[in-house]
């Protein structure tokens, strides 16, 4: 009987980078801090596919690396299957037992494969390091995983530059699932692939999830793909989660103005009218360096902002069943006109 405990529970996670001038002699504190991830909390349940969307600079790459324990958080907790893995420093995590449980598939398969390693060696790497397999046991497991990901065994002796984009993607996936992880983080796994290959890889990911009882954290900028694959989605902006909820609901009725703007920017094949219904976000994102903690991150670009948004940082509140948004004026009816701007910074 599986427990109700979520597989991954992230609470109040923050990652701050010092920027600005340091003094050369002595310990000078950095003059500013860049808030890459600023108080993120969410959970991933067993067998769930959670999508993480957001644009460049929103902090999703950093968040993903914090969860994969490649980086250490500045604050907050990461709880994996009841174990507080945030406390284990990143440089020691390679030796810790949970290392094999959380794996990642990278965006650019070409970049994430060592050009001097054959596909076999690349897939064998985690097995050598984390499972200490060798010889025939190693070969057997690599071939099994290759079969699972649809990689023909004659491709295993090839180098990355001798493989196609789809084949490289499969190698990356095979390597990630070789050590039987429970949580797989997929960082834009199909963004570099052609449409026809993308379908195949997405199907593969769907099948693997069922076969191997995996949970996915699926990071993507392609909202269409996220909609198809994910149960729940999280929308990030400037280091904050601004909306979360079941994928269908969020896509059909976004509650946060940023989500709404994001969805309206996605072109739909066969549909020419996107421009007329476009909800734009004027201006540039606020600076992530030393952000004022009481101003909503979208303030100044949001058509619904008032003075309240400038003095009181909105927290994630429940909007509907399972849907949360961090907004004082969530969009409860997407057909309604946005309220006129009362005050802009």
């Amino acid at each position, binding site marked *: 009987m599986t427990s109700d405990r979520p597989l991954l529970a992230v609470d109040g996670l923050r990652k701050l980078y010092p920027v600005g001038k340091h003094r050369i002699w002595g310990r000078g504190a950095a003059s500013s801090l860049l808030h890459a991830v600023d108080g993120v909390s969410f959970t991933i349940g067993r067998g769930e596919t959670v999508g993480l969307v957001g*644009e*460049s600079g929103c902090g999703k790459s950093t968040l993903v690396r914090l969860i994969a324990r490649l980086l250490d958080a500045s604050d907050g907790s990461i709880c994996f299957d009841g174990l507080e893995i945030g406390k284990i420093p990143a440089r020691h995590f390679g030796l810790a037992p949970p290392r094999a449980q959380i794996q990642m598939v990278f965006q650019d398969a070409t970049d994430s494969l060592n050009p001097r390693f054959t596909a076999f060696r690349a897939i064998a790497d985690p097995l050598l390091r984390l499972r200490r397999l060798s010889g025939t046991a190693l070969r057997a497991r690599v071939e099994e995983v290759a079969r699972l990901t649809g990689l023909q065994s004659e491709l295993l002796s090839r180098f990355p530059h001798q493989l*196609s984009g789809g084949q490289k993607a499969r190698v990356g996936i095979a390597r990630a699932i070789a050590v039987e992880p429970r949580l797989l983080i997929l960082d834009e796994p199909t963004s570099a692939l*052609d*449409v*026809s290959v*993308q*379908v*195949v890889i*997405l*199907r593969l990911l*769907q099948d693997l999830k069922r076969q191997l009882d995996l949970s996915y954290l699926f990071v993507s*900028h*392609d*909202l*269409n*793909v996220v*909609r*198809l*694959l994910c149960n729940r989605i999280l929308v990030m902006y400037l280091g904050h989660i601004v909306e979360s909820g079941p994928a269908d609901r969020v896509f059909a009725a976004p509650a946060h103005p940023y989500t709404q*703007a*994001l969805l*309206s*920017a*996605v*072109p*739909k*094949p*066969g*549909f*020419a009218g*996107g*421009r007329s219904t*476009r909800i*734009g*976000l004027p201006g*540039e994102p606020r600076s992530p360096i030393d952000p004022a903690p009481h101003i909503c991150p979208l303030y100044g670009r949001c058509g619904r902002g008032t003075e309240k948004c400038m003095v009181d940082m909105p927290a994630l509140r429940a909007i509907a069943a399972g849907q949360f948004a961090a907004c004082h004026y969530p969009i409860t009816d997407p057909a309604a006109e946005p309220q006129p701007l009362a005050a802009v910074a």
Partner: protein
Amino acid sequence: MIGDSNTVPLLAVEDLGIEFRTRSGTVRAVDGIGFELCRGKTMALVGESGSGKSVTAYAIMGILDAAARITSGQIAFGGLALLQAGEKAIAEIRGRELAIIFQNPRTALNPIRPVGKQIADVLLRHGNVTAAQAPGRAIEMLAKVRIPDPERRARSYPLELSGGMCQRVMIAMALACAPQLLIADEPTTGLDITTQAVIMDLIAELTASQNMATLLITHDLGLASEYCDHIAVMHAGHIVETAPMEALFATPHHPYTAKLIAATPGGAPSLDALVAIPGALPDLRRADLPPCRYSERCERAAPDCFDRPLPRRSVGDDRRVACHFPL
């Protein structure tokens, strides 16, 4: 000499064929493609990687790689035969009547020159402005593409600008001399969704206000739908179908078009509804390529598809399809 009517095609490509000499053989990148584009209209060349769409764009601009050879065809730009015109004639109109925006804006700009100077360079070369007027006009262009604080930004280097801003600078450079034809080669690859929307809206607005013809090269059917009147679908160096946008999606006539639409996540209700395209691109180095390069992947293929030359028939209103057995 350059066409100024909206009904006579500004750009007419006919039976274009391009080959590349490589170490591993001759790649027949483009074979017998043809299309037309009038002023004020936008057309998308849609295809996956390796379909030959960028190569076509470069051939029109005259910036093909040295290893490329044009084996057949004509490109007529407002009465001028581009393939026969000398390098000097092309250099005159390139940048002035004919402009291109590349993907990956940061690498397409000169990293060691301020962006204002780069725009001024184009103006000085093609734009009938004096050296004294050029910087001012460059700032005007930056304002036109809605870069905030243009006087200050003109002194910035590409490294200091975001991807979206760099793309705006490229648009400014391309439109500085009010060209008649704008080619946009995957202009939004690598940009955020919201930035993509803003940039494409900007291009649409500027091209409409100047009655330009636009050729959009993209792999994204959604982008093509939203910004283009006509879509030409390319596969392995052939144009398999040309149609007005809505007609293409309502009733695709070529099997590949139908499969491509069915494989695009944007339109599908669920993952199971997505259909993978069977087979793979044929190796374009082969000497024995069948006349229809899709036939080896096509479920409807018949012996005719491998023997008879590829037909290019008109089907109805402004549509063409290259198939013996269209849908």
